């Protein structure tokens, strides 16, 4: 492992043009895609890094844009692959599974024949580009968030080859979820997971994306982009688990384009990374759409989770409802900045946004910036943010039943999480996720039980 570490660290970082040139020369992609790559690289070089005074980066204090320590990793060893595959086990009952390690495709489980026969496509991007060029042409790299990370989008698009396309044609309904794992393994590895999910008219399906580290002590960088397209009447449930180790720097830049009468759910569990930026943008382009976004973050030590959301209503009679919950320990920080934008014609919009922060140690810090921009006059919109500690009277109630303080606190904290966890709506997954959270809590001493509720 030592030799591997040295070899990687002498290579130029992914922000260096030598790194990109080398990547391009090794790439087996078609010329047209390589040309895109060059354009994106130029764009990356032109764009400035974000600054904390930028509107979309307010309160982000632990920004670390030095990419020199992160490189594209060499192929993983057989041992690593074996280990990764044995641990890719969050969802047993599934419609298909794809596993990547440091961008490298290491496992691809064929989807049931019956689904393939109905035109369902679930493929790594590099394979999709030859087998379904029309889909790739139509959807790949078409979207980016408008929340301040253009430079990272460009970087992602310049490098990303790993990732998948999930396409479910009109009227196809699938119960068991599709599962994808994006593992980080090598020291200093840079990952560029791409997630492309397209639901045809009246389709129904769900997908689970898990981002994890194989080792706890290795640094790394992940810049993931996820684009969801829901055509009329599609019902799409996307679940994302970000459980990298606490030395990672990660970006997750997501868009959701939803059409008429769709039902789109997005739920994120965020546990890992030293610094994690999560952007989530919803564009409601068709009437009657129903979008629900949930997120649960557990922050410890000096982790910083930076969450920026945008709910855009461009069509009438649609609902969007967002609930982001953060529990903070130690010196961790979270930032939630959310905006609801309702266009003039989007009458009878119902749009809600809630951010709840639970401070479990006095030294943790939660920042909240909710916002509304409404041009229509017949709408129901609300936003609210609360930051508080465990309620003392509730704690006394537990104690009076004989439950020791430590266990009472744990139950209360998990009670706070439950509202989001149960939205995963898959018992096996929920149990696994409670296990992941439990592991994070095992050795924690929580000190904050004095009430300090502030509501805005």
């Amino acid at each position: 492992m030592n030799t591997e570490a040295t070899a990687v660290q002498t290579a130029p970082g992914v922000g260096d043009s030598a790194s990109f040139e080398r990547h391009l020369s090794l790439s087996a992609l078609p010329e047209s895609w390589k040309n895109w790559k060059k354009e994106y690289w130029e764009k990356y070089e032109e764009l400035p890094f974000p600054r904390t005074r930028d509107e979309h980066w307010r309160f982000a204090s632990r920004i670390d844009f030095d990419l020199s320590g992160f490189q594209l990793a060499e192929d993983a060893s057989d041992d690593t692959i074996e280990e990764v595959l044995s641990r890719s086990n969050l969802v047993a009952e599934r419609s298909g599974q794809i596993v990547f390690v440091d961008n490298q495709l290491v496992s691809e489980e064929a989807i049931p024949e019956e689904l393939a026969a109905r035109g369902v496509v679930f493929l790594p991007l590099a394979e999709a580009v030859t087998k379904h060029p029309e889909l790739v042409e139509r959807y790949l790299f078409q979207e980016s968030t408008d929340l301040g990370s253009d430079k990272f989008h460009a970087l992602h698009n310049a490098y990303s080859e790993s990732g998948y396309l999930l396409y479910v044609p009109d009227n196809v309904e699938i119960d068991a979820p599709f599962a994808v794992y994006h593992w980080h393994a090598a020291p200093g590895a840079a990952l560029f997971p791409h997630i492309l999910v397209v639901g045809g008219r009246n389709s129904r399906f769900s997908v689970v994306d898990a981002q994890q580290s194989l080792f706890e002590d290795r640094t790394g960088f992940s810049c993931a982009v996820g684009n969801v397209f829901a055509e009329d009447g599609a019902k799409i449930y996307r679940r994302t688990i970000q459980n990298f180790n606490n030395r990672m720097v990660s970006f997750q830049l997501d868009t959701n384009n939803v059409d008429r009468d769709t039902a789109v759910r997005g739920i994120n569990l965020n546990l890992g990374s030293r610094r994690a930026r999560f952007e989530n943008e919803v564009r409601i382009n068709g009437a009657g759409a129903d979008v629900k976004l949930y997120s649960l973050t557990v922050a410890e030590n000096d982790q910083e989770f930076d969450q920026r959301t945008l709910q855009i209503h461009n069509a009438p009679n649609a609902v969007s409802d967002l609930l982001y919950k953060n529990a903070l320990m130690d010196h961790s920080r979270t930032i939630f900045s959310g905006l609801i934008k309702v266009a003039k014609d989007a009458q009878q919009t119902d749009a809600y946004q809630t951010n709840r922060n639970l401070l479990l140690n006095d030294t943790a810090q939660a920042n909240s910036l909710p916002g509304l921009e409404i041009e229509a006059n017949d709408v129901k919109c609300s936003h609210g943010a609360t930051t508080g500690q465990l309620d003392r009277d509730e704690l006394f109630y537990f104690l009076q039943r004989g439950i020791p303080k430590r266990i009472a606190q744990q139950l209360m904290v998990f009670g706070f999480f439950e509202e989001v966890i149960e939205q995963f709506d898959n018992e096996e997954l929920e149990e696994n996720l409670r296990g992941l959270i439990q592991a994070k809590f095992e050795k924690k001493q929580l000190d904050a039980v004095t009430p300090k509720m502030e509501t805005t």
Partner: protein
Amino acid sequence: MSQLEIKNLNAGIAGQSILKDFSLTVPKGEVHALMGPNGTGKSTLAKVLAGHEDYEVESGSVLMDGEEILGKEPDEVARDGLFLAFQYPLEIPGVSIANFIRAALQARQEDGEKFDAPAYYRRLYEKMNILQIDKKFSARSVNEGFSGGEKKRCEILQMSMLEPSYCVMDETDSGLDIDALKIVANGVNLMRGPDRGILVITHYQRLLDYIVPDKVHVMYEGRIVHSGEKELALELEEKGYDWVRDELATTAS
């Protein structure tokens, strides 16, 4: 020894003294009722007994089966056998009734003792049946969105599952309709026995028709001013607290 003995208790909150030389003894096997006007300190007494850290105890002692409980941590007092049915039960989002009571029972187990989940659920459903609480409630978050009456029933459910030696029931009857009152009273009566002492705090004589007390105490301005048989409750109902006040005035002058 088998009694809850409160002796010359002086306690208060936020610098205000509320319990003034309060003394009361509830032996095992008996049910005592405590009545008194709003703000006289009944709930304060309950919280002090339970060890709530916000209340300041100036002097006095509370012996439970001969052992001092003042100064102990609330969870320890609870495991030692004191149960408080809250006047205002708290809502605990995300924690189911089944898991809440389970955690309370597990806290009373020896280290390494296995928890018999099937037996637990059998017993839980049995008690729910007695209190006429729908089985589905066991999966609901503790008290969250419950009606006032449902909350009170849930308190008695917990009490009957934990089988405490001493119960302090703070206005368990308020908020109950007449049918629910009978159901709850039945649940409490089933718990009466030689191994348990019960203190019922109430404003209404009506409850005492269903839970017939061995003794009735009237509390006024932080201390007990009258003790008697159950007829005292009737007398109080008839004459009101003016009677107590006037009588006190007469004694003082």
